């Protein structure tokens, strides 16, 4: 690919619960692609806006909850200025809009490489039991609740401790009904309904990052074990591992669903060697740069797939590669902040 590509990326919130935008951009910049990076931010203090040498230009976007009209209008304005070739959305909460308006974006000349609406919907936390049954995958007992009253009448297999999960983000492990009620209210107020109750399984948290080509092929997959987990349940450190069973499960899911795009499978490995799928995130996760470091540049591959190139699957990676996050105080000038606040561009 000789043409200079303009790639727009969201998720520049490199905070304690980080978005994947910054590591996605790092992966793209590590590749041989000739790129101009456009950051799309929702908040004017997303760190990625201000990180030196990361984005060539940033635009503020209206929140997806503002509605599709404002969203498309802003994207159209940015496209008129930047001629975007590929957009990589990285937030669960914005994916629906990008998927729904994929055709409109295509007509504008903006390419994506995202799951279909059906793929996106059926892997929702609230649909996980049905997904597991359809594709023969082991998942913990779970139920989606739309009323707090239902907490008092959970089906028999569900016992404390269990996880109470927000529709899009956040999960809390609860050990009694007062905690459960507190977090139900907190999560439903923040992310809406349903709230998902999922049985806690004792074991090691392991994740796979993968990329499906939409034809049933796994073009990239790297398993990782969380080594250091924050109080928000995010991996602050992790290490690539050699685990053929995890890769088998990943290839099975991608083949069965003909998954298109990046994904993260969150699993628990029990002491008996059983694997429980606890969540499917329909996008590249924030620890993607570990996969790049282990030999699979998933952001680069995703860009090529979006541009219609054939991408040869990579079946190898280096195990024992680690990542450790850190926080770093950037010093900025108020004039940059002013530009973002006043003009919505920097």
């Amino acid at each position, binding site marked *: 690919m000789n043409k200079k590509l303009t790639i727009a990326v969201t998720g520049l919130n490199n905070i304690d619960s980080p978005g994947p935008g910054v590591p996605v951009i790092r992966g793209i910049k590590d590749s041989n692609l000739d790129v101009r990076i456009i950051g799309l931010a929702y908040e004017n203090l997303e760190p990625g806006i201000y990180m030196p040498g990361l984005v060539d230009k940033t635009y503020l976007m209206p929140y997806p909850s503002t509605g599709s009209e404002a969203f498309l209008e802003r994207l159209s304005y940015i496209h008129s200025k930047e001629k975007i070739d590929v957009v990589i959305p990285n937030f669960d909460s914005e994916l629906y809009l990008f998927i729904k308006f994929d055709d409109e974006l295509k007509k504008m000349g903006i390419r994506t490489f995202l799951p279909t609406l059906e793929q996106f919907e059926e892997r929702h936390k609230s649909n996980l039991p049905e997904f597991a049954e359809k594709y023969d995958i082991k998942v913990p007992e779970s139920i989606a609740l739309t009323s707090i009253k239902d907490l008092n009448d959970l089906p028999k297999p569900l016992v404390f401790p269990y996880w109470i999960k927000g529709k899009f983000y956040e999960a809390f492990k609860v050990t009694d009904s007062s905690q459960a009620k507190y977090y139900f209210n907190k999560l439903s107020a923040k992310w809406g309904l349903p709230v998902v109750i999922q049985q806690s399984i004792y074991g090691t948290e392991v994740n796979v990052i993968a990329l499906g080509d939409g034809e049933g092929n796994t073009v990239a997959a790297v398993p990782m*074990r969380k*080594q250091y987990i924050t109080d928000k349940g995010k991996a602050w450190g992790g290490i*690539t*591992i*050699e*685990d053929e069973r995890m890769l088998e499960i990943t290839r099975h899911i991608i083949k069965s669903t003909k998954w298109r795009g990046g994904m993260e499978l969150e699993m628990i*490995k029990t002491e008996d060697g059983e694997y429980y799928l606890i969540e499917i995130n329909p996008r590249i996760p924030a620890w993607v740069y570990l996969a790049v470091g282990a030999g699979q540049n998933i952001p680069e591959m995703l860009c090529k797939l979006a541009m219609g190139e054939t991408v040869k699957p990579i079946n190898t990676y280096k*195990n*024992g590669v680690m990542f450790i996050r850190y926080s770093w105080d950037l010093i900025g000038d108020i004039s940059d902040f002013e530009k973002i606040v006043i003009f919505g561009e920097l």
Partner: protein
Amino acid sequence: MSKLNSLAISDNGFIFKPSTGESFTTNELGLHIIHLLKENKSTNEIITEITREFEIDKLTASRDLDEFLDLLKRENMV
């Protein structure tokens, strides 16, 4: 001993288990035992070897070997 062969073991006694991402440390004696196990030495041969190498009596060597083998089994490394 195929499980032992899948471990990444450094000369410093750092052991990395690629299948789980776990890491362990051992001392010179543990490292020596692992090397002998990888050479398929019998328990008696290992006791004789470490008795000579570390200048300890057979009873201590036997006890140390048992403890170390227990640890390896518990961590699913043998």
